[in-house]
């Protein structure tokens, strides 16, 4: 048993953490995250040049990583800096392109950006009810809140194709794309498809889509761990310095015990993320990811709400960096399956395993 990162991953984390600390400070982040294109294209290229995107893909796909711990290491660092760059859609696109056997060099060197449109407004997390469909190789339907879609060159879209789900590639120039900013920073888009030309990448893509969703959810767990670490440190610093009634507010037991509960749940969240990362590629990949995303969802809400409460009025201001961390912690529950959705997936395992003995 060993809970240390490999030397390579430790260096990867160090490189990215250092770059983001130098280049992506709170002021810069605030400047780029809330105005179109809702990220910094120059810094995007620099992050790609560091090899961060290649770390998310296996060698067979042209990368040098792609394992669960590669994903969590990268996203934990992105979370620490509250980085709004569209790395998550890159990860998910990479999983889908690899499964389809499509070359992805331009994706991994950062020159080609993909948006990934899987769920829809009325079936945001599970795909069995999606309405986007293919007819004669053309797509009709609508994909909502595609992260990074506002500045994407291409889209990977899940659509009905007969009884199954297929994955298509759509050029941004062929479709109607309406981009916008997100409440927690970064950008997204609505993708309107109306008899839009599309290239079929994969039929019967259910397995590949689930894998991309798992990888994406794991990435969000890693991001959340990074966000929570920084949020906690910010809170502790505030409790040590803010004075009321002639003493630091951190000296009040009513607050101390609540902070300990946050610390406990953050450690639990780190643990379950490690577990899920270790299970990528194993039979229980999806179940482990769902367990992680559920616990992360519960903890992220606790950390965000308690941090705002204990900061008092100051965390209600746009100016305080911690308020943006709290928003991101809250809103990542809306991505790729929320707390309840993932709990239901774990529960569904209880019914299925009825058939199995024991």
């Amino acid at each position, binding site marked *: *048993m*060993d*809970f*240390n*990162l*490999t030397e390579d991953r430790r260096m990867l984390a160090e490189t990215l953490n250092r770059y983001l600390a130098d280049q992506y400070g709170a002021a810069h982040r605030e400047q780029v995250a809330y105005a179109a294109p809702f990220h910094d294209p120059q810094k995007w290229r620099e992050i790609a040049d560091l090899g961060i995107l290649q770390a998310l893909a296996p060698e067979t796909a042209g990368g040098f990583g792609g394992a669960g*711990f590669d994903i969590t290491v990268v996203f934990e660092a992105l979370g620490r800096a509250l980085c709004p760059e569209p790395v998550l859609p890159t990860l998910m696109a990479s999983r889908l392109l690899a499964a389809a056997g499509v070359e992805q060099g331009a994706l991994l060197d950062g020159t080609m950006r993909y948006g990934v449109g899987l769920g829809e407004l009325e079936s945001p997390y599970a795909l069995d009810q999606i309405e986007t469909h293919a007819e004669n190789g053309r797509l009709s339907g609508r994909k909502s809140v595609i992260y990074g879609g506002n500045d994407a060159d291409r889209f990977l879209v899940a659509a009905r194709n007969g009884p199954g789900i297929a994955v298509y590639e759509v050029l941004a120039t062929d479709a109607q794309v309406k981009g916008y900013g997100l409440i927690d920073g970064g950008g997204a888009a609505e993708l309107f498809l109306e008899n839009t030309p599309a290239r079929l990448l994969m039929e019967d893509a259910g397995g590949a889509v689930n894998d991309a969703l798992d990888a994406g959810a794991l990435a969000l767990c890693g991001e959340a761990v990074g966000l929570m670490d920084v949020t906690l440190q910010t809170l*502790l610093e505030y*409790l*040590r310095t803010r004075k009321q009634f002639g003493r*630091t507010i*951190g*000296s009040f*037991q009513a607050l*101390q*015990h609540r*902070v*300990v*509960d946050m*610390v*406990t749940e953050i*450690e*639990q*969240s780190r*643990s*379950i993320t*490690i*577990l899920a*990362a*270790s299970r990528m590629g194993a039979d229980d990949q999806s179940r482990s990811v769902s*367990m992680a995303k*559920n*616990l992360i969802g519960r903890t992220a809400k606790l950390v965000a709400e308690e941090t705002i409460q204990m900061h008092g009025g100051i965390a209600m201001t746009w100016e305080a960096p911690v308020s943006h961390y709290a928003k991101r912690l809250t809103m990542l529950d809306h991505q790729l399956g929320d707390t309840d959705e993932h*709990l*239901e997936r*774990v*529960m569904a395992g*209880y*019914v299925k395993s*009825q058939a199995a003995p024991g």
Partner: protein
Amino acid sequence: MDLNFTPQEAAFQAEVRTFLRDNLPAEFARAVRDGDELPKALMEEWHAILNGQGWLATTWPKEFGGPGWTPVQRHIFEEECARANAPRIVPFGLAMLGPVLQKFGTPAQQAEYLPRILDGTDWWCQGYSEPGAGSDLASLKTRAMRDGDDYVINGQKTWTTLGQYANRIFCLVRTQTEGKPQAGISFILVDVDTPGIEMRPIRLIEGGYEVNEVFFTDVRVPASRLVGQENEGWTIAKFLLTHERTNIAGVGFSMQALDELKALARRIRRNAKPLIENPLFAARLAQAEIDLEAMKITNLRMLVRAREQGGPGPETSILKIKGTVVRQALNDLSRRALGPAAAPFPSEDLLGNASLVPEEHARNAARYFNNRKLSIFGGSNEIQRNILTKAMLEL
């Protein structure tokens, strides 16, 4: 990152499983599963079986007759024992006093007491808490006055677990009243049959009898029974409490409780369906299972940290807090799963009448009530929060 056991650890796990399969009597496992009050003879026999294998004093180094295990081996052993429903090793002599004597005792004390703990000659119990000194242990008042070669002890201890079976008791006593409360405490060993000691049972919430009050009236104890220096008992008390927190997460117990709960929820039917398919129940179950899955990794991470740092640190308080809460949640779900069948009092009458309530269910609610103690003893969860605040948060 590697969450797997090493080949040696995996082989050890297999060895423990084989040993338990071949040596744990089925009626012992059944009694533990059903939550019976275990008779003294049963616990002594289980100790003897483990001692025969050299696996009784799990935390002791080899030179004192322990197996010299690593923290990971100890964890594997504890988890496998819990999964097999083996009786708990009574901790007072083995897990608490043993390490204290090894660190603070004289060679003569070590030679006198340690072998008797191993072979079962002595059954130790703990004299720590007092009616006025619970979480605030340092405020204890039981007084030991030096008189020639003896100490004379007056006062009262409480919550003395299984004191009814013990022939000896280790006590924290006040030998000085000036200065900080912590400064005047000493650690002393007392024979339970010394004149002036009276042990009275405390009946617990569920009706069971496992803890006692101990009254001391002019109890004379030779000064050679002092462990460490006079007035330095607080250091020993804290050392012992850290050891008490070993395996405090109780992950193995919770894993076993989860398995049994799932089996129960598949058997029990509600509204023409297995209870496990009821969405509200299943949601609570899933949440507890997820917390436990995370707990397993948290526990292992802290074990590895303890290995790297040479001992458990304050972060073990996280294990105490979360481990007890998870286990209590499972007990709670199990009790509620039974519905009305959990209600009958587990009297001898009822236990003999399997047609009314199956034996494995008879003590279900009693176990729930009894295990409310988990978040109170060994330093209440609120005290653990204070410890964590002081040690880790720099507030």
